[in-house]
């Protein structure tokens, strides 16, 4: 059965494995993601060895269309985050999930 990992589960792991109290564990999980957001917001990429890299890409303005009205309107230039899983993570996922039968979405 598939489940979803959320901040609540991560906090309870920190409570169980690191010995932080409930409030500290919750704050640590929040700070972990906040530090990553903060670095990316400042234009700094984030490299977490064994997991993957978060990088920034700047996309120029391009022509687009309002799908409802069909009206042409430019899609503004923007900066977006991309994630590249590490070779290690990709290899582990490939090894466990070889076929299409599990985890289709």
């Amino acid at each position, binding site marked *: 059965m598939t489940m979803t990992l959320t901040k609540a589960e991560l906090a309870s792991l920190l409570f169980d*494995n690191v010995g932080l109290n409930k409030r500290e564990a919750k704050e640590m999980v929040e700070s972990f993601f906040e530090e990553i957001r903060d670095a990316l917001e400042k234009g700094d990429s984030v490299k977490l060895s064994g997991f993957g890299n978060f990088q920034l890409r700047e996309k120029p303005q391009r022509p687009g269309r309002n799908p409802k009205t069909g009206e042409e309107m430019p899609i503004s230039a923007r900066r977006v985050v991309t994630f590249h899983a590490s070779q290690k993570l990709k290899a582990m996922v490939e090894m466990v999930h070889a076929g299409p039968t599990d985890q289709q979405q």
Partner: protein
Amino acid sequence: MTKSELINRLAERNPHLVAADAELAVKTILDAMVQNLVGGNRIEIRGFGSFSLNFRPPRVGRNPKTGEQVTVEGKHVPHFKAGKELRDRVDFKD
């Protein structure tokens, strides 16, 4: 920012904790994220984004050296979709 810089920043942010706790916390969080993705679970972090596996169907490829046709098996690859807060914060401010 690397993993060790992230650990240092978390340790500075939490002066009441010992530095080793920040290191163990980062390792615990990343390890849980890896184990859940490998186990086929999704990861959903509100305000940050979600991680899941995408399936790449099998295809007929070519060995670029010999030109020989080869069957490439289907595989799952990790995928990240940024959440709204992260998307808004990294975009250009106007």
